[in-house]
């Protein structure tokens, strides 16, 4: 190319094409040198350092000076001055954060320029920036706005779910209260009959204690998710119990109640499951009856020798305890026995109440001992006392199962309440962070536009 241009001396004048080539080369060289520096300058002006918001404003007053001074010197001076200003106000460890963009921007100016041009119609894959993270967000304003909207919606949903769960806990509590007259009267009658039968040997089939070869486990889980670790706890407890039984060399079968437990056991065909049952919204006597029937027939037909009930006991709004109770064989006095043999007297009824204390929802558990009134001494038993006991014990079984279902439901609702509450808190924090970043970007964009306009106006002058 240069040889061709050297030939110019041989001609009288310069052809228009040659002129054009000269002009083009000169312009291209000028652009090559000035453009990167331009970008660096703009970057410093707009991006600033983290924390110095007023960078844009301060620069705009000195813009003319910058155009007059040689580019390289102005940028270096500007950069170092603001860097020192910035550093004194921040923690020392942020040094690293500043050095990286400094070196990167000076050495590879293109990368910064290109990133701004990423098309925004891609799904926003923005990494969120927390106050202590290293990566800045590289999204467009629109993506950020969409993200903020979706987080806001999610927060509304989780808040609503929390309130719904709180309302349902109250209803579950009412159900327990409604069932109390039944269990109180039952316990009273049971006590009195036992007193009359103290001398005799009771031989009701449901109290039959046999050598244990096979155990049935009734596992009560929830129907829906989003309740924290509720379902996992109970399933883990069930697995632990199964392992224990295997070690003792006992056979076992599972009756699973609740959709979550069902789906877990369906995926594990190596665990023998007797039946899958689904609970409704509020456990009714009919559902308890189905489970009781199943358990009853299993026990009476001597297919299993022991039935254990696994459910979550409602301790408080933030704490639930998965417990194992021995359902069958029943003790004739109506005691509820734990797996380890700790027995609770049936007359001591524990029930929970949801109240407010100091403006916060709390739970109070009261232990009520039912008054056992003496039967009138001339009370006749229409049938054999043993037959009457035979009729009473299934009632007792039914009420135990119903109580377990109700407590399990109450603990599931409490777990959902606390899980949704923390989800709402996280969502508002995330929204706050995103809004801050969004505002900063928006302000930076406006500052950039102002700079361009002023620069353009200056260039004309």
């Amino acid at each position, binding site marked *: 190319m240069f040889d061709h241009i050297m030939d110019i001396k041989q001609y009288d004048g310069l052809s228009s094409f040659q002129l054009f080539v000269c002009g083009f080369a000169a312009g291209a060289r000028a652009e090559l040198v000035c453009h990167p520096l331009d970008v660096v300058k703009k970057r410093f002006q707009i991006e600033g350092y983290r924390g110095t918001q007023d960078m844009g404003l301060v620069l705009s007053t000195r813009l003319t000076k910058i155009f007059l001074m040689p580019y390289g010197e102005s940028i270096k001076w500007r950069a170092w001055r603001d860097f020192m200003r910035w550093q004194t106000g921040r923690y020392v460890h942020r040094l690293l954060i500043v050095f990286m963009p400094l070196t990167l921007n000076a050495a590879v100016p293109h990368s910064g320029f290109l990133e701004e041009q990423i098309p925004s119609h891609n799904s926003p894959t923005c990494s969120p920036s927390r106050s202590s993270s290293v990566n800045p967000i590289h999204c467009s304003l629109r993506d950020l706005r969409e993200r903020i909207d979706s987080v806001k919606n999610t927060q509304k949903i989780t808040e609503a779910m929390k309130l719904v769960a709180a309302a349902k806990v109250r209803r579950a509590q009412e159900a327990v209260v409604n069932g109390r007259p039944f269990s109180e009267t039952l316990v009273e009658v049971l006590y009195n009959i036992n007193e009359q039968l103290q001398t005799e040997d009771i031989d009701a089939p449901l109290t039959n204690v046999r050598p244990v070869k096979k155990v049935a486990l009734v596992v009560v889980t929830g129907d829906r998710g989003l309740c924290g670790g509720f379902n996992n706890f109970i399933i883990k407890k069930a697995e632990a119990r199964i392992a224990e039984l295997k070690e003792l060399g006992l056979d076992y079968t599972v009756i699973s109640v609740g959709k979550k437990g069902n789906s877990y056991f369906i995926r594990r065909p190596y665990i023998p499951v007797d039946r899958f049952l689904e609970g409704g919204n509020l456990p009714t*006597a009919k559902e308890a009856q189905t489970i009781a029937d199943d358990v009853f027939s299993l026990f009476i037909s001597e297919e299993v020798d022991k039935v254990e009930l696994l459910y979550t006991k409602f301790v408080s709004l933030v704490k639930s305890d998965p417990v194992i109770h021995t359902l069958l064989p029943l003790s004739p006095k109506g005691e509820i026995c734990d797996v380890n043999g700790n027995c609770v007297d049936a007359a001591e009824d524990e029930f929970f109440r949801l109240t407010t204390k100091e403006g916060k929802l709390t739970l109070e558990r009261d232990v009520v001992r039912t008054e056992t009134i003496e039967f009138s001494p001339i009370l006749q038993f229409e049938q054999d006392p043993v037959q009457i006991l035979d009729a009473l014990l299934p009632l007792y079984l039914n009420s135990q199962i119903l109580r377990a279902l109700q407590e399990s439901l109450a603990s599931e609702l409490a777990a959902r309440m606390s899980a949704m509450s923390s989800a709402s808190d996280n969502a508002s924090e995330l929204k706050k962070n995103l809004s801050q970043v969004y505002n900063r970007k928006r302000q930076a964009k406006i500052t950039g536009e102002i700079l361009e306009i002023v620069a353009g106006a200056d260039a004309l002058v």
Partner: protein
Amino acid sequence: MTLNLCVLTPNRIVWDSEVKEIILSTNSGQIGVLPNHAPVATAVDIGILRIRLNDQWLTMALMGGFARIGNNEITVLVNDAEKGSDIDPQEAQQTLEIAEANLQKAEGKRQTIEANLALRRARTRVEAINVIS
């Protein structure tokens, strides 16, 4: 002198008011209770409870339990109770047919026990609607 009748199930109170007379089905037959009855404790079978209020009889299907008759106070504890007026006739009939079919198919001691129970319950429900008097 009226009797105070209380019918309780594990999740709610089905009946809690005064009646004139009741007829209860127990394991050893039906017993009628009038005011000032002697105190009795009895097991209640899966059957019908008939209540008389001022010359009008109401039926209720009971699914087994226990009854205590004291000083003009009757307490009936049952697993489940349904008022005759609350039962849908077609649905009850269908349940009965299904229960009968299940009993035919039942194999083994355990299934037979379950099927028998279900059949008795379905039959009681159907009877509760049909009996008017």
